[in-house]
């Protein structure tokens, strides 16, 4: 298995593999999204305290989880590239960043829309919201640093260091609702305890999370293919592939 990993570590070998994988993940994303939205908007019951406004949970929570998860994966790829000096790892990190930033923005925006009817305010400076905002700035800083450095290898390594330094922020976001008295509600879903919400709501939410996950993979694979073509544009195989 490791020899297979090793083979696909070269951009040239990974390019066609990624191309074959994209349709599967894209279809999965569409299916999960359709199922999740159906459950979320037609099957799950009205919430006792929040009424219909709560349904934004089916966008907000998947977006928030993906924003943190993608950052960790991105930092992981970046760190791998730093240690092993591989080109593809840096390209994967570059491919993930815009999607991660988008989900972070979506989480903040959907959260604001949810906050207005339930808390009476679009924004409050509590620990969770502030650290999620910092996460958005970290993504944007990562992208900005990569754009600013001309040499792609140096850009990969510098932004990898930045990503790793920012990893500290992710546990802060996740645990902020436990460590501080925040306006944001505490965790309703845990790996160890029973969930504190109706089964159908949970199902809808998890389906949307899976949809977001499949979408992220599909989009990142498509993006990394474009990055590969751009970075390896002097290689013979690229000239043949593009011709």
């Amino acid at each position: 298995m490791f020899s297979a990993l090793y083979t696909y570590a070269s951009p040239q070998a990974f390019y066609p593999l990624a191309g074959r994988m994209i349709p599967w993940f894209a279809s999965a994303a569409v299916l999960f999204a359709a199922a999740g939205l159906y459950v979320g908007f037609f099957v799950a019951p009205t919430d006792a305290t929040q009424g219909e406004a709560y349904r934004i949970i089916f966008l907000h929570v998947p977006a928030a989880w993906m924003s943190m998860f993608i950052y960790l994966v991105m930092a992981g790829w970046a760190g791998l590239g730093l240690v092993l000096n591989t080109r593809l790892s840096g390209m994967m990190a570059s491919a993930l960043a815009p999607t991660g930033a988008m989900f972070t923005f979506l989480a903040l925006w959907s959260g604001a829309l949810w906050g207005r009817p339930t808390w009476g305010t679009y924004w409050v400076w509590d620990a969770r919201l502030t650290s999620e905002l910092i996460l958005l700035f970290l993504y944007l800083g990562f992208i900005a640093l990569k754009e600013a450095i001309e040499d792609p290898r140096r850009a990969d390594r510098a932004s990898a260091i930045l990503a790793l330094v920012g990893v500290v922020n992710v546990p802060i976001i996740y645990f902020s609702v436990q460590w501080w008295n925040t306006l944001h509600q505490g965790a309703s879903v845990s790996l160890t305890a029973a969930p504190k919400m109706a089964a159908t709501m949970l199902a809808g939410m998890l389906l949307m999370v899976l949809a977001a996950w499949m979408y992220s993979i599909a989009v990142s694979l498509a993006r990394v293919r474009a990055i590969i073509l751009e970075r390896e544009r002097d290689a013979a195989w690229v000239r043949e592939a593009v011709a």
Partner: protein
Amino acid sequence: MGAAFAMTLRRDLLIALRRKSDAANVLLFFVIVASLFPLGTGAEPGQIRAMGAGVIWVGALLASLLSLPRLFAADAADGTLEQMLVSAQPLAAVVAGKIAAHWLTTGLPLALIAPLLGLQYGLPADALAVLLAAVLIGTPVLSLVGAVGAALTLGVRGAGVLAAILVLPLCVPALVFGAGAVTASLSGLDPSPHLSLLGALLAVSLVFGLWASCAALRVALD
């Protein structure tokens, strides 16, 4: 290790001493910025006291950012940074010496002036003491995180603004706890939880900041 730290600290302090205007300008900027806020927002005493801690902290943050180019850029330009990377001394000790010198010439003067600005904002004596403590603990964090930003953007076009964009989000926890300590003291609450969190931040940024700065310098001079 200690010898390398002391030797670099002494050298950077010597250079800073011979270019006094650099440090003086940073202090002046701090004072001006902190004085601009009441002019901009209206001068009611209650309002001013409430925002004093935050304004002083943001001013210290911006002033520290302005002084970051001094940290590595000059040495990178004349080739001395390169010599530090091929030296017989551990890079971490040398970089620590440079960051310590940066704090002594930037952060420490800012910290000592902050209570005076706090007076301008009408903060009472015990809040001023908390402010001093918070800025004393917090400015090394700014120097350490700033060093990472400065190292990552060495020689890059638009390095000043880019370093600021990278550094400011990472400095937000220091800002929150530092200003929060003073606000707590103003409300009659105990500021020590904020101060201890700030201390923990200092410990974490000491480890991460040194590692990241050294790694970023090696990348920048590759």
